[in-house]
C-alpha cells in the first residue's frame, strides 16, 4: 500500500480535497475539545469560514490522482459487490466502514475462498462472522472498508470484480419450515422397557429453527419395521430424523434400513465429536434422512446442531461437507454451553 502524497494548500483552494489529518477544536467558552473535521473529510465551500475561525489558513490535504478514489466511494462499491442474496447495507459509510446486515433470519453463508481472495487484493478488506452461523434479520454479519483514505482505483476494481464473479461473498439463506418425521429405534424403547429421551430433544431443536414435527414413530430393532417406518415417513415429511441404532452392534440397523428403503447415504460416520456415528442420506426425491447417534441425548450440542440448519437452508450435504467439519469439530464440553458463540463447528 503506498500512502498518497500530502501537500499543503491554502484553505480557499482546498474545496473538494481530502483532509489528511484530524483538525481539533478547542472552545474555551464551552470547554469543548474535540474533532471539528476528521481525517478523510472532503472539504466543502461551507467549511472555509469555520476552518478560518479555527486559525487554519493552510491545510495538509491528500493529493488524489485520476487513478485513486476516496475511501467512502470505494467502500460503497465494495459493499455492493460483497452483499449477495439477503444481505443488505446502509449506503452511508461511517469512518470509512460499511456493515453488511442480514436481511432475513437464516443461515449466513460466506464464500470463504472468495473472501480470502478479496482480502489478498490489497488496500481493501472485509471481515465476517463464521459461515454457516444462524443469524437474525438485522444482525451485522460483516464489515468492509478501504484501508487507506485514498485507494488505488484498480485495486477496488479487482476486489469488486472478484466479489461479483462469486455472486456476492456474503449471503443469508432463509430456513425452510420442514415437516419433520422422527423415527425412534430400539427394542428397549419400543417395548416400553425404558422411556425415550430423544423425542423432546429433537423436537426442541427442530421447532426452534421454525420447522414442525408431523409424526413420531417408535420402532423395534427390526430391519423391516424401520424400513416400513421410513417409507411411511417419506410420504408425509420433508425431513426425516432417525435416532438410535447408529452404532456398530448387531442390533444397530438404522443405516442399513435407510439403504434398504432406497436412501442414498452421503455420509455414515462424521469428523465431529460428539457425533462420530452421524448419518446423512437422501431419498431419490431429495428428502433428507439424518441419523442421530446416542450422543444426541447426552451432549447439548452435537453434529446434528451443525447440519440441521444447513439442511433446512436447502443444502444437499455431501461427504466432503462432513469431512470438512473435522477442523473445529471438537466440542470442548464446557460446563456452561455458549454454542454457537464458541469454536465448535467453526470450520470453513
Amino acid at each position, binding site marked *: 500500500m503506498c500512502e498518497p502524497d500530502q501537500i499543503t494548500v491554502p484553505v480557499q483552494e482546498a474545496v473538494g480535497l481530502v483532509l489528511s489529518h484530524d483538525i481539533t477544536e478547542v472552545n474555551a467558552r464551552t470547554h469543548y475539545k474535540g474533532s471539528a473535521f476528521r481525517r478523510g473529510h472532503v472539504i466543502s465551500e461551507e467549511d472555509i469560514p469555520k476552518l478560518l475561525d479555527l486559525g487554519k489558513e493552510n491545510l495538509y490535504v491528500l493529493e488524489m490522482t485520476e487513478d485513486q478514489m476516496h475511501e467512502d466511494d470505494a467502500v460503497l462499491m465494495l459493499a455492493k459487490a460483497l452483499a449477495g442474496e439477503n444481505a443488505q447495507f446502509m449506503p452511508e459509510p461511517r469512518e470509512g466502514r460499511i456493515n453488511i446486515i442480514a436481511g432475513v433470519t437464516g443461515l449466513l453463508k460466506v464464500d470463504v475462498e472468495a473472501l480470502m481472495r478479496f482480502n489478498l487484493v490489497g488496500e481493501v478488506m472485509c471481515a465476517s462472522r463464521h459461515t454457516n452461523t444462524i443469524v437474525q434479520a438485522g444482525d451485522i454479519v460483516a464489515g468492509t472498508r478501504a484501508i487507506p483514505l485514498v485507494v488505488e482505483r484498480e485495486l477496488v476494481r479487482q476486489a469488486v470484480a472478484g466479489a461479483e464473479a462469486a455472486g456476492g461473498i456474503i449471503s443469508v439463506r432463509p430456513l425452510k419450515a420442514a415437516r419433520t418425521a422422527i423415527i425412534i429405534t430400539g427394542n428397549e424403547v*419400543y417395548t416400553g422397557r425404558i422411556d425415550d429421551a430423544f423425542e423432546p430433544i429433537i423436537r426442541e431443536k427442530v421447532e426452534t429453527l421454525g420447522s414442525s414435527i408431523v409424526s413420531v414413530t417408535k420402532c423395534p430393532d427390526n430391519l423391516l*419395521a424401520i*424400513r416400513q417406518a421410513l417409507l411411511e415417513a417419506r410420504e408425509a415429511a420433508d425431513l426425516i430424523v432417525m435416532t438410535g441404532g447408529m452404532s456398530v452392534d448387531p442390533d444397530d440397523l438404522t443405516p442399513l434400513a435407510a439403504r434398504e428403503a432406497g436412501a442414498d447415504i452421503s455420509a455414515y460416520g462424521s469428523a465431529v465429536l460428539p457425533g462420530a456415528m452421524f448419518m446423512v442420506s437422501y431419498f431419490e426425491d431429495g428428502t433428507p434422512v439424518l441419523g442421530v447417534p446416542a450422543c444426541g441425548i447426552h451432549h447439548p450440542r452435537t453434529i446434528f446442531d451443525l447440519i440441521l440448519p444447513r439442511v433446512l437452508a436447502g443444502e444437499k450435504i455431501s461427504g466432503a461437507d462432513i469431512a470438512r467439519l473435522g477442523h473445529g469439530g471438537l466440542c470442548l464440553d464446557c460446563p456452561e454451553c455458549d454454542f454457537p458463540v464458541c469454536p465448535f463447528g467453526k470450520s470453513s
Partner: protein
Amino acid sequence: MKSLEEHLAETAAFHGGDCPGQTLGVRLARAGLEQIGVDEPLSDRWRKNIMVYVEIDRCAADALMIVTGCRVGKRTLKIVDYGIMAATFINLKTGKAVRVIAREEARSLAPKYAPEETSKYEQQRQAYRVMPDEELLSFEEVKVTIPPEDLPGSPISRVACERCGDHVVDMREVKIDGVTLCRPCARGGYFTRGK
C-alpha cells in the same frame, strides 16, 4: 413366475385335491403379486420382502401359500378371518399394498366360460382358470401399517405371565394394574382348563 398349470398342480398336491376355492386362490395370488411388482416370489430377492394378509381361512389360503411362498411360521402370511374371499399383497420394499377381492359376479359368469360343464362346482373350477382378471377379481390400492411386533425377525420381547407362568413373546402380553398377564389369563382364551 411359474405357469398357472404348475401352480394349480402344486396347490392340489399341498391342499389335497382340486377345487374352485383353490383355483380362485391361485388366480388371486398371481394377480396380487403382479399388482405389487413381484415376478419371482420364491427368489432370494423377494422371499423376505412380501407379506400377505388373507381374509378367509379356507382353500384359497393354502393356494396363496404355494404361489407367494408366504408362510404363517415365517410371519409373512397373516390370516385375518373376515370371511371374505380377499387378500392384501404388500411389497415391503416399496410399501405398496393392493387388496384383491374375488368378485361376487364371477360366480354367475362361470357358465359362460365352461358351458359344457353341468355341475356348478366343476363349472366354477374350470371357469376360474380362464376367466379374465377383470371379471374374476377387483383391486384396490390400500395402505397397511404392519405392527412392528408382527413382522418377521427375532422376537422383540419375552416375558412370563405372572399368573400361569407361560412365556409370551412379541408384546402379546397384557398389563393390568401393573401385573403382566398372558391373554388367556387376562381376557379368557379359546380353551378352558379342567378341574
